[in-house]
């Protein structure tokens, strides 16, 4: 938990228009799951290609073997080497696995991602993943995988696999050499404005300025999160805590309405302060 808190994911990205878009770097877990998804896709494709090739072999007979073999060997080669490059050089700069978890590759400089960057970052995968695997597989297949080789392979693999955890920007070796990083590009939908929510019960609540001064923006955002999640027990616990702090005691079934009303008034109160030049960051701020 402490480590996660230490990792600050936001990085400045100033557009030519002068707005800071604050990109968020993808964390190691997200990237690992994206990579695993890609591995599953690649291996499924490889198995399917091989099965089709084997069936084709039976149907076509011996003399058709050669073209089939060429196609097979080239397709497997492309899957291993071109899969990542082709997808990341595409319009969305993400492999299917990355697309599913909502991340993409971007240039660290903020300029457009170029194809040579994509190639550089993916060729390095060869020593990060495939080399230790093939050493282990080769040794294991030949029955000469001694302890030392296995340990060496594992240490190598771990060294590279864990490399992103040991630097500030979560860079792989390939990212480092290509000048890229992997950022989150969530597709968020525009959701309703909570302060415009019509609730007859909520209209019954009114709060004094002293009650509204109890909290700041950080708490407001937490409250927004709770309201959007709309979990009965969470709402009740939060309503009780707020009620105790500001000296109001809402009935248990009313907690959602109470919080909606408090959220609306608190937000308007803080937004008014904001307009007047006072960004009240949290409850400790004046």
């Amino acid at each position: 938990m402490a480590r996660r808190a230490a990792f600050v994911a936001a990085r400045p990205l100033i557009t030519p228009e002068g707005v800071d878009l604050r990109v968020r770097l993808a964390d190691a877990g997200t990237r690992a799951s994206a990579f695993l998804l890609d591995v599953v896709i690649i291996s499924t494709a490889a198995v399917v290609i091989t099965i089709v090739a084997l069936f084709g072999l039976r149907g076509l007979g011996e003399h058709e073997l050669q073209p089939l073999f060429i196609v097979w060997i080239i397709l497997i080669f492309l899957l291993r080497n071109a899969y990542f490059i082709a997808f990341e050089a595409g319009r969305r700069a993400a492999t299917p696995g990355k697309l599913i978890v909502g991340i993409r590759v971007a240039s660290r400089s903020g300029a457009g991602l170029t194809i040579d960057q994509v190639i550089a970052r993916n060729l390095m995968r060869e020593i990060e993943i495939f080399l230790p695997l093939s050493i282990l597989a080769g040794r294991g297949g030949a029955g000469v995988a001694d302890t030392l080789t296995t340990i060496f392979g594992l240490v190598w693999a771990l060294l590279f696999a864990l490399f992103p955890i040991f630097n500030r920007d979560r860079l792989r070796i390939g990212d480092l050499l290509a000048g890229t990083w992997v950022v989150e590009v969530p597709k968020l939908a525009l959701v309703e404005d909570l302060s415009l929510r019509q609730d007859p019960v909520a209209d019954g609540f009114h709060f004094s300025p002293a009650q509204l001064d109890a909290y700041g923006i950080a708490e407001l955002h937490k409250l927004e999160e709770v309201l959007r999640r709309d979990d009965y027990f969470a709402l009740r616990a939060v309503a009780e805590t707020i009620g105790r702090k500001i000296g109001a005691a809402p009935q248990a079934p009313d907690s959602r309405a109470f919080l909606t009303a408090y959220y609306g008034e608190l937000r308007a109160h803080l937004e008014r302060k904001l307009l007047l030049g006072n960004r009240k960051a949290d409850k400790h701020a004046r």
Partner: protein
Amino acid sequence: MTMQAGTNAVRQSLASFRQEREADWKAFEALLARVEKRAPRALSEEELLSLPLLYRSALSSLSVARATSLDNALVSYLESLCLRGYFYLYGARRGLRQRIADFFLHDWPHAIRDLWRETLVSVGLTAIGAGAGYWLVASDKGWYDAIIAPGLAGGRNPDSSAEMLRSVLYDGASSEFLSSFAAYLFTHNTQVAILAFALGFAFAVPSVLLILMNGCMLGAIFQIYAAKGLGFELGGWLSIHGTTEIFAIALAGAAGIRIGTRIAFPGELPRMAAAAQAGRVAATAMVGVVVMLLFAGLLEGIGRQTITSDGVRYAIGGGMLALWSAYFYLFRLVRHG
């Protein structure tokens, strides 16, 4: 009571801010979703022109929302929308045909020229390796098995007869697997080249060793042929594809050496920037290496087994070498007069 009125006014104006701009955001989102899926051609001219306008309006909305609104969901939505728009509009996007043309006309020869120093070192290392391999096998036959794995040697060793060695050079045209052999050679050599490149990361040491070893193998096999007076014939057999292949592997090694040395000695740039710069040049060179290996695989898999005249073999090998050198180092002169 003035405070209550003021609060309500703020609430009203923020609600109308969102109401007025919402249509633009939605339109931008819909357009983005379309261009991200399909080529920009799918849009009408009018829609295409409206993209940057909608992007700037979304950016300005984001600035306003950050300064005035405390609706976290709204700010996050605008941030993600602007980020998508930014990546789309500022990602320099050229057509595929344009990119391919640029690569062959400019990027590839430029990257190879940029690596000239490393290329010289790499070729030199191959020559040193070859010399060492030749000398070692000449002084003690036992070295041959140590340098070339028995599986690769194909039964050729220092004790083979001259007829046996000769048969390897000129037979094999009957094989049906020529083109699949070519495909296999191509994928195998490419994997080796990528390794030589990627290993450069470890301060170039593994790349140097790999290139030296490659040279050693050349020298060793050359020695056993030269000892039987078949040196000239082996030269033809090797050079038909070897000029392209050995040049390509030397270039891959050069790319690896560039990365390793730039990480070790970044010069005036910060280490990270130097590494990124070297990585990009080297990656471009590597794509070229893959193209060269494709040619080498075709020449080796098909040409070598069907063309058995020494003269023609030397001519093709020399011609390919001249072609590559001219393309990399002289082409620019032709284009710029």
